[in-house]
């Protein structure tokens, strides 16, 4: 440096420079998150040998859509995809119904033991699923429900995730103005009427938060399908994704990644579009523990 007019301090104090620096720092921090996604998307189009190439190619040299079609011929992937979709939808609606009913009752209907029952119910939220999975498995075995989708639908709705959604609903209903239902009560509407005609139409933010939590919980759930499901065509997506292996048990990376992209992309698109709601529902469920 020739003159003292240029100093490192004033260089970094410069607005544009500090902005660019800030961006670069963030970008470096973000690489461990961005690169896995980038690698997943691009490798889904690569030929198997290209995935292993050194130096790695940033973009596929040719875009192979055949990986995607092979995913469907390797195992009943369409069927498995459908399983995940319909189970997640049933879980979402079941959770919406039961958690809003219970959440409303705990927030607004006075009945004996309400607060004690609520605290007892909340204890479910702290339960690691590994604690309850074994007795639940034995119970389902007794009912001959192993290798069916019933446990995958019932457990998320009525287990700890459902309880967490009940908690979310109750917190929301506590904040809803009482006048809304007072008027309806004077008009002679009974509780189910109030719930259905007054409360539910006013609970959209909470309902959408619960729907997001329930859907993603089911869609990404791995432990339950792993334990309950044996047949290939009853698999859900997380199980199916692990199943793209060759005769030696080694992953068929290109096909596996194409399938992974198909499982992940709809969720990511939804997340990017409805980012605000998704983050809100997660941060709410996060603060509860």
């Amino acid at each position, binding site marked *: 440096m020739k003159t003292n007019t240029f100093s490192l301090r004033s260089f970094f104090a410069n607005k544009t420079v500090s902005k660019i620096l800030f*961006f670069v*720092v963030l970008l470096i*921090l*973000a690489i461990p*998150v961005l690169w*896995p*996604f980038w*690698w*997943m998307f691009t490798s889904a189009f690569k030929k198997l040998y290209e*995935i*292993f190439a050194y130096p*790695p190619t940033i973009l596929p040299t040719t875009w192979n859509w055949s990986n995607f079609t092979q995913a469907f011929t390797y195992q009943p992937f369409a069927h498995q995809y459908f399983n995940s979709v319909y189970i997640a939808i049933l879980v979402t609606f079941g959770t919406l119904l039961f958690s809003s009913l*219970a959440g409303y*009752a*705990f927030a607004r*209907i*006075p009945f004996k033991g309400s607060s004690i*029952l609520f605290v007892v*119910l909340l*204890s*479910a939220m*702290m*339960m*690691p*699923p*590994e*604690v*309850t999975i*074994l007795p*639940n*498995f*034995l119970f389902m075995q007794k009912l001959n429900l192993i290798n069916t989708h019933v446990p995958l639908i019932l457990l998320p*709705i*009525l*287990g*700890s995730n*459902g*309880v967490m959604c009940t908690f979310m609903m109750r*917190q929301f209903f506590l904040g809803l103005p009482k006048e809304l239902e007072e008027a309806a009560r004077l008009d002679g509407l*009974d509780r*189910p009427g109030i719930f259905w005609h007054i409360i539910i139409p006013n609970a959209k933010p909470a309902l959408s938060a619960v729907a997001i939590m329930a859907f*993603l919980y089911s869609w990404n759930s*791995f432990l339950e399908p792993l334990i309950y499901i044996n047949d290939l065509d009853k698999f859900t997506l*997380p199980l199916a994704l*692990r199943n793209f292996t060759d005769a030696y048990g080694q992953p068929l*990376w290109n096909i*596996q*990644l194409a399938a992974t992209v198909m499982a*992940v992309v709809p969720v*990511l698109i939804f*997340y*990017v579009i409805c*980012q605000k709601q*998704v*983050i809100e529902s*997660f*941060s709410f469920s*996060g*603060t509860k*523990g």
Partner: protein
Amino acid sequence: METNPVLQNTFPAKINKPAKQRRSRTKLIDALWGYLFIAPQFIGFLVFVLGPTIAIFVYSFMEKNLLSGKTEFVGLNNYITLFTKDALFPKVLGNTLIFTAGLVPINLILALVLAILLARSSFVNNFFRTVFFAPVVTSSVAWVIVWSFMLQGNSGTINQVLQVFGIKGPNWLLDPGWAMFWVIITRVLKNVGLNMVLFLAALQDMPREHLEAAKVDGANTWNLFWNIYLPFLAPTILLVTVITVIGSLNVFDHILLLTGGGPSNSTMVLSYYVYFTAFKVNETGYASAIAVVLFLIALGLTTVQWSMRKKFSYNEN
């Protein structure tokens, strides 16, 4: 809700009586609706959460095998074996501790740094928020599939990067010294976004005047962090710490997918040990005893969390 005292006093008792009766009748019907409304969720809780929790206590006193169907009452035998004879159990507890002690500080510090860097809403910041939160909504299976490739011996991305610097990295997930490290790192990257948004939510409520005043006084970034951000965020940090500790008990899927508890049991943690004993070794009774230990740890941590929540009355109503 009690009957309104004002109403009771303004009306003479005689006229009040039928009205009162009618009111208690509607109250009773109302209460019945209340029980009916909570019934599905609560019965579900009894059957799928409370019942099983009691069941693992009962099973833990039995020798029970999933395959042979054998069931025999053995008293405290499972616990005696667990605490005195099982050579793996101390290692499992140690691994669980290493995992939690490694994960929690890294996760929290990274989440805090990201939240402070991204606190102000702008196009660039929102983009990075989106990026750091994206793994939270992504399935663990997908996340682990990608990372298990990147951590491979020869063709893994990590080793390819290291090769540029002339370092030959091991096959990370098969190296007992490194496997746990990568389980922690990949888990942090998957979940750090969640803690980041919790901190971001807390920062929303931060009074900006303090920050501006301190900047005018010439405080540098370090001063700002220690004297403004940290005291303000302290209650949130405490709470998020406990949440993260409790969450760290529940790593089953990550362990199973990434390492399967190996190599040489170096990533065998408590939650995975329960699964392993129950469904791979099929020792239901013994697995239940381990599950009881897991339950008691979770219970202890939750008690801490609740007492803390009372202290800070954080985000309640």
